[in-house]
């Protein structure tokens, strides 16, 4: 259990096999994360990384090492150091092969056995499935057929599988993905990853709540007015060269038809909501915490068709301005993407790039406390936070002026870009008059601990090596989250509306989202 440092489990010797190691996730996140763990001395001494998939050029091992170096140079929280990198690269390999080719698995198996000998690895494996959902079942089947999955009861070696989101695109397909993995891996071998849960602030949510005596007594309907969870992204779905404006990368292929609800709300945001709202767990055991989280999902008030109309807003960005650059709208990007691949250009997309919603948790603690959620692409800045807004003080004394209510007390836990928290309180300005002014008390991880915060993937990979599933999603949580969003998806899919509300890139979303919260006498926070 790694929540309590004194009880921390150690990462165990193993080989980490990355399926789809030629892809973006591996290049941007996984390889830099493993490199940092290596530099920090966190990895087991008997450890190797093996990439698996197609796309290598020349010598596969050299290719993945170059690719890793490039990814580390661009995206790592620390630049590559020649000595460290040379050490790291020695244990980095690549096996070229198709996910649907049994011979490739045989080659992979043979290579792993050879690496086991080379590095003294006892045969334990972690398979990181950084592949599209439709490849998951096929990969698992082949792993099982090739005899590459140890029994969960084997105490000598372990096999664990990491499944990336999206886990399905609705409840039915999620159940299928889960069942596909189930064919070869037991639940305690399966780690459904949501990298948001690896972020320090998200983990700190529980520490804030349960390691301080002042917050938990206030953490309920009696004191909390409402909660806002925001995941704002500056990026759109297409990356362009800032000088030539030529497209350098695109996520349209993945995103079109998926949208913000599936991409962000169903997983990241609902998981964060669970940590924010769960009942105190009786221990830090993985299943105890996961039980507490599931309890929140089970209490989410189901949305009726009418609720979807009144409590959920979806929208799409149109052309606007980000960081002083004009950027195109989403539909333009979709047309551009498919046309550039000589694929049929879909009729005008109704994929949402923004979602705002109001939801309720029907339990004793949170009865009738609204939770406002918003997430979107091409918003003015990258900023994610959970903000607990406490109830106003009575309208007497300092809050007696009807026109100018005091700014309420807000505890904001910032997930990105700078992890930390702030508490906004009211204070008197110096001077003879009593003038109240909001004061923001801030805590910033980087500034306070004078070190760069480990990336979420670093923490999560270590947890898998240590066998700690606390920060991973259990199947019941995945299914409950899909169950909650199902009426929204159904409503939208049956809708005949061709045009979604729009917002200019570089603004905080559509007017409809403002109306949603302002109808309750509240407003979105300025981030």
């Amino acid at each position, binding site marked *: 259990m790694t929540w309590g440092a004194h009880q921390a489990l150690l990462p165990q010797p193993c080989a980490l096999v990355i399926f789809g190691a030629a892809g973006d996730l591996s290049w941007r996140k996984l390889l830099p994360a493993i490199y940092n763990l290596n530099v920090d001395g966190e990895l087991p001494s008997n450890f190797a990384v093996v990439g698996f998939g197609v796309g290598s050029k020349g010598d596969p091992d050299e290719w993945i090492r170059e690719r890793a170096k490039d990814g580390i140079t661009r995206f790592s929280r620390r630049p590559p150091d020649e000595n460290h990198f040379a050490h790291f690269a020695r244990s980095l390999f690549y096996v070229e092969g198709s996910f649907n080719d049994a011979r490739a698995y045989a080659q992979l198996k043979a290579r792993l056995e050879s690496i086991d000998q080379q590095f003294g690895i006892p045969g334990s494996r972690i398979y990181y499935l950084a592949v599209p959902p439709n490849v998951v079942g096929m990969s698992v089947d082949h792993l099982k057929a090739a005899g590459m999955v140890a029994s969960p009861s084997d105490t000598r070696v372990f096999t664990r599988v990491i499944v990336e989101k999206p886990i399905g695109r609705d409840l039915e397909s999620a159940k299928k993905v889960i069942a596909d993995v189930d064919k070869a891996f037991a639940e305690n071998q399966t780690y459904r990853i949501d990298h948001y849960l690896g972020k320090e602030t998200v983990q700190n949510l529980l520490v804030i709540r349960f390691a301080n005596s002042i917050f938990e007594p206030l953490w309920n309907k009696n004191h909390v007015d409402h909660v806002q969870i925001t995941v704002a992204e500056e990026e759109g779905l297409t990356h362009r060269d800032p000088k030539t404006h030529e497209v350098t990368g695109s996520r349209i292929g993945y995103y079109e038809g998926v949208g913000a609800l599936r991409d962000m709300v169903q997983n990241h945001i609902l998981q964060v909501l669970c940590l924010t709202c769960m009942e105190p767990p009786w221990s830090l055991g993985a299943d105890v915490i996961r039980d507490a989280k599931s309890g929140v999902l089970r209490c989410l008030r189901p949305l009726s068709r009418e609720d979807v109309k009144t409590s959920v807003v979806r929208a799409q960005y149109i052309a606007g301005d980000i*960081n002083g650059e004009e950027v195109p709208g989403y539909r333009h990007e979709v047309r551009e993407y498919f046309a550039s691949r000589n694929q049929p250009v879909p009729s005008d997309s109704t994929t949402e790039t923004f979602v705002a919603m109001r939801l309720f948790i029907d339990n004793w603690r949170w009865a009738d406390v609204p939770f406002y959620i918003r997430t979107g692409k091409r918003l003015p*800045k990258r*900023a994610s936070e959970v903000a607990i807004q406490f109830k106003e003080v009575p309208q007497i004394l300092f809050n007696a002026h009807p026109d*100018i209510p005091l700014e309420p007390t807000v505890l904001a836990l910032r997930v990105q870009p700078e992890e930390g928290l702030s508490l906004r309180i009211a204070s008197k300005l110096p001077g003879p008059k009593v*003038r109240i002014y909001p004061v923001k008390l801030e805590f910033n991880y980087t500034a306070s601990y004078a070190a760069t915060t480990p990336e979420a993937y670093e923490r999560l990979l270590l947890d898998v090596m240590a066998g700690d599933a606390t920060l991973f999603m259990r199947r019941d949580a995945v299914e409950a989250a899909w169950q909650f969003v199902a009426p929204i998806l159904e409503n939208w899919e049956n809708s005949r509306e061709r045009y979604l509300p729009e917002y200019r890139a*570089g603004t905080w979303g559509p007017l409809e989202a403002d109306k949603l919260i*302002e109808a309750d006498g509240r*407003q979105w926070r*300025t981030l």
Partner: protein
Amino acid sequence: MIRNSPSKSGLSDPVALKDVERELDRRMFIVQGTGESPILRARMSNLVIYCDRPELANEVANEIAEIVATHPARVLLLLAEPSGEAGDLTATVAVRGRVVDPGRWVCSEFVSLHAKGRAAERLPYAVRSLLIGDLPTNLWWAAPQPPSMAGHLLYDLAEHAQQIIYDSVGWIEPPKVMAATASWLNQFEARPGRVPWRVASDLNWRRLKYWRRILAQTLDPATAPGAAESLSEIMIEHGPHAVIQAWGLAGWMMSRLGWRVQQGHFQEGEEISWQFRSPAGLARLRIRRLPEGTAEVQRVHLNCILQGKPGAFNVELHSDRRISVMPEGVIKAEQRTLTAPVQSRAELISRQLSDRERDPVFHESMAVALILAQRLLGS
């Protein structure tokens, strides 16, 4: 002791908008130096300043140190030259640090955004991305153009602002601009259907503080019984460029006295006068421009009944920054004085930043100022 981040002006070379925060962080560390105690990044609010000319932006930039010394804020200084050549939006940043206690540095952040041509339309986007959340936002509309005539750019910039500060000194076409401003105030502050409140504040109103105080004391029934009720003529004299200030004072006096305007007369650059129905019968208020003097109200003359006889109060600003009140037609009258210290624009701004309450007296005065304007405009 004051310490600037590198370069003579303290300003960086142009940086990409996306790198502004990073550059501010970097400069913060430079200001801190090595081996010293942590710096305090002081910011009570976001202060967005809008300028429409480079000279004005330079003038304002020189006042910022004084403003943030009283009211630490993240300052976003916007310079829009809509008529300039089409160009990009460029950003420069600076960090200024000063020692408050031995070893304790307090730093403030300054971002300057310069937009030419159509790039001015992109300023609101840049502002959104640079505001610090959870802090009040103030927009100082430093351009000479009245905010009521500024169009959508002001509304876009004020999107998240709790207060807009403007300065009516020097405005021209007084009846038109007063009518427009008074109407705009209600619309701007009300934001129909929207939850957030916001206020608009005129620095000229703040400048009138001492005048309002001494006039209220002068006409107080406890010190001059019956004077206010018996007022028959009020004359406000002002220096060049201060007609709006004088009008503001007139609006305030009429709102306090409850006079009902009947008709008005406007002689551009010389005098504006109105006739009223007052408790004493017909009464007159005149605003007269003096050929020289500082751009502020210089004298107020009040004709009334004092001690049962026709008399007057002469209230006058002196060069030593005292406002004196001299009763006329009264035996054994002593001159009374009130100090009206010179307040720089920076000082007025820094005080206004912390003063975000909606001032009902200002609004009542502006409502009367609107009626006065309508009488002149014939509407």
